[in-house]
């Protein structure tokens, strides 16, 4: 099982993701430089958090044109696992691999805090080690994480069950006051219709060891590890 962690100029969570992959999970780690179109045989590509290309113009707007992104698009088309975290989610939306967009937090504040996420899909490669309706405690760290999609797209996401994580309270109730950024429908993470491209604003790599205050994030990494063998990548 080989994870590829993409590094753009301005990425900052690449080492955190890399640490979880090779030090905590014990999987094979490959950093992928944004100018390199070769995905080096990775089974799962992580687009980590940060500010790729300074987030100039819009978050993820420039990163989506990097050579590595074209390969990632083809990889996703073949069913490969692509996992965008924070800035990675923004890049996936800009590139059209996921619908919608992430806009400025409703509070206008940069929010760096713990959140609770209810797992709405436990049948995905990314969540197979979670229970449905399980509540995960995962931190966020972003200024532009408010999920937006037009009403037609939003209802399609809901009908297809593409909402994977929603901000909730400790009991798993999805409430307006458990929404840290103004995301529509409290959306914290979505998946494409095929189920192989996940985008999420919260940072599972920052809660994968007890020393960091929680290990819920590790469940997602373990899920990918567990599921990867079953996913066919041509």
């Amino acid at each position, binding site marked *: 099982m080989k994870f590829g962690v993409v590094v753009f100029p301005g990425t900052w969570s690449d080492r955190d993701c890399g640490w979880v992959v090779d030090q905590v999970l014990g999987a094979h780690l490959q950093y992928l430089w944004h100018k390199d179109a070769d995905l080096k045989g990775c089974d799962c590509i992580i687009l980590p958090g940060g500010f790729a290309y300074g987030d100039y*113009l*819009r978050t993820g*707007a420039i990163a989506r*044109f990097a050579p590595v992104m074209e390969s990632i698009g083809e990889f996703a088309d073949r069913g490969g696992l692509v996992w965008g975290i924070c800035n990675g989610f923004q890049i996936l*939306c*800009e590139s059209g691999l996921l*619908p*919608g*967009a992430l*806009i*400025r*937090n*409703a*509070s*206008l504040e940069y929010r760096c805090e713990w959140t609770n996420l209810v797992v709405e899909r436990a049948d995905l490669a990314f969540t197979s080690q979670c229970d449905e309706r399980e509540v995960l405690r995962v931190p966020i760290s972003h200024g532009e994480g*408010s999920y*937006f*999609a*037009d009403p037609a797209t939003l209802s399609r996401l809901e009908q297809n069950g593409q909402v994977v994580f929603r901000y909730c309270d400790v009991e798993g109730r999805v409430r307006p006051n458990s929404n840290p950024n*103004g995301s529509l429908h409290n959306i914290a993470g979505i998946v494409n219709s095929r189920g192989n491209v996940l985008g999420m604003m919260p940072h599972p790599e920052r809660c994968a060891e007890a020393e960091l205050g929680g290990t819920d994030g590790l469940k997602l990494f373990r899920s990918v590890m567990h599921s990867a063998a079953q996913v066919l990548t041509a």
Partner: protein
Amino acid sequence: MIARIVVVPKPVVNDPQGVTVRQGLALLGFGEVTEVRVGKYIEVRLDATSERAARERVDAMCSRLLANHVIEDYHFELEHESKGAMR
């Protein structure tokens, strides 16, 4: 030629910056302000054989990169360049 491009959040998109600026204006005594939308202004200097050709190219730039059609609308004006035009 210079394209003066304005990118604004779509009316359906929540614009917390605009709301906050409006509140600031109200505090300064500009109570007549009913709405503020905060967007971007982009100047692009380009070589083009005609205004029509320039319009097509700038339109493509906006739809491919300068604006995100999910959340933003754009419009632009073209101006033939005079001496020392671009600020």
